[in-house]
């Protein structure tokens, strides 16, 4: 190994030892490893069920397929503890609601993903993230 390569190697070792501390992760329960976060997608369908559970809420959406039938897609959302402090309730999505979901898709192509936001039948947009209310003290 020549001296230039040695310097690079040493630099790599030093950098490996010195790393930035992580800021707190928005999705605390686990990482986003299974989602393709490089692009946001949308899909329109009918709510089959809205699960208001920990560690994640789940939106089950019936989406028409090319065979003339319907597939049930699953979207993972933030905890109800988090959403409940940001305008969501367990009744925000009702079975039968026609909504358009913005999401990160699955890396393996399966039908579903990470729920980012949706447009309700009344036109209102509901987001997963965002700051908690500031004037509620």
């Amino acid at each position: 190994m020549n001296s230039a390569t040695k310097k690079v190697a040493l630099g790599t070792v030093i950098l490996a030892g010195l790393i930035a501390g992580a800021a707190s992760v928005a999705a605390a329960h686990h990482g986003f490893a299974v989602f393709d976060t490089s692009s946001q997608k949308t899909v329109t369908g009918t709510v089959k069920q809205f699960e208001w559970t920990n560690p994640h809420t789940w939106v089950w959406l019936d989406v028409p397929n090319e065979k003339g039938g319907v597939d049930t897609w699953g979207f993972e959302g933030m905890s109800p503890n988090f959403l409940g402090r940001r305008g969501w309730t367990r009744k925000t999505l009702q079975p039968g609601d026609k909504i358009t979901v913005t999401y990160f898709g699955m890396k393996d192509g399966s039908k579903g993903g990470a729920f980012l936001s949706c447009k309700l039948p009344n036109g209102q947009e509901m987001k997963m993230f965002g700051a908690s209310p500031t004037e509620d003290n």
Partner: protein
Amino acid sequence: MISPGTALRSIVFVALASAALTFTAAAQSFKRPAPTAADWTALAKLPDFTGVWEVTMGPRPATGIINPAVGVPSMRPPQISLTPEYAAKRQALLANAEQDNQSANCLPPGMPGIMAQPYPMEFLLTPGQVTIVIEAYSMVRHIYTDGRPLPDDPDPNFFGTSVGHWEGDALVVQTVGFSTQTEIEPHVPHSDKMRILEKFRLLDPDTMNIETTVTDPDALTAPYVTNRILRRHRNWTIAEYICEQNNRNFVDRNGKAGINLTPPGAPSPAPK
């Protein structure tokens, strides 16, 4: 020759004496006296930490109010300086970072990560103790302020054993006894010699700063210091968080992370 009865009594005596010695040497030997009315009254003189506090994201102050006496909380994520041995351990963990994550099976982080989850915390002040009810994973930390010493040989666990005292308006807490099953930050390992020092202080009536200093002579070449801002909400309550209520995340036999997208009520697919 010793009669069987005498032998039996000798054996029983030795067994009981050994049990007594073991019991008094056990970790739970400090006995807090019953609180007096004066103890309860004294709590009113402490800074008001009561209530439910939102853990704000990242190191930036939530309200923008800076207390010059405390200093400016760091605006950038701080650096972690690992020793070469622990830098190598971290590289090994990162090789499997995407696949293996202990939180996928609902295992909570230990200290200090449990204090950085995006869920609120509730502080309870009682004679001789500060109790922190942590909504994330429904966890609890006990901080003993009754004058007991830090244990010198604590059982290693996720949150350690915490002893604290009041220095003016600041609660200063030392914690020792951490299991190496936990991490300082995701994929950042520590040794069983890790120690954590925390200083809890109000910046204004509804803003708390927690300065956390992690030291570890085997894993860190310098202390790892973070500042986190908490904001009190008088109308918030701690909600339940049962992680296994509807956990659809898993790590399969090969250590690969996945999600179960089978809709509720549909038959489950055959296990892989």
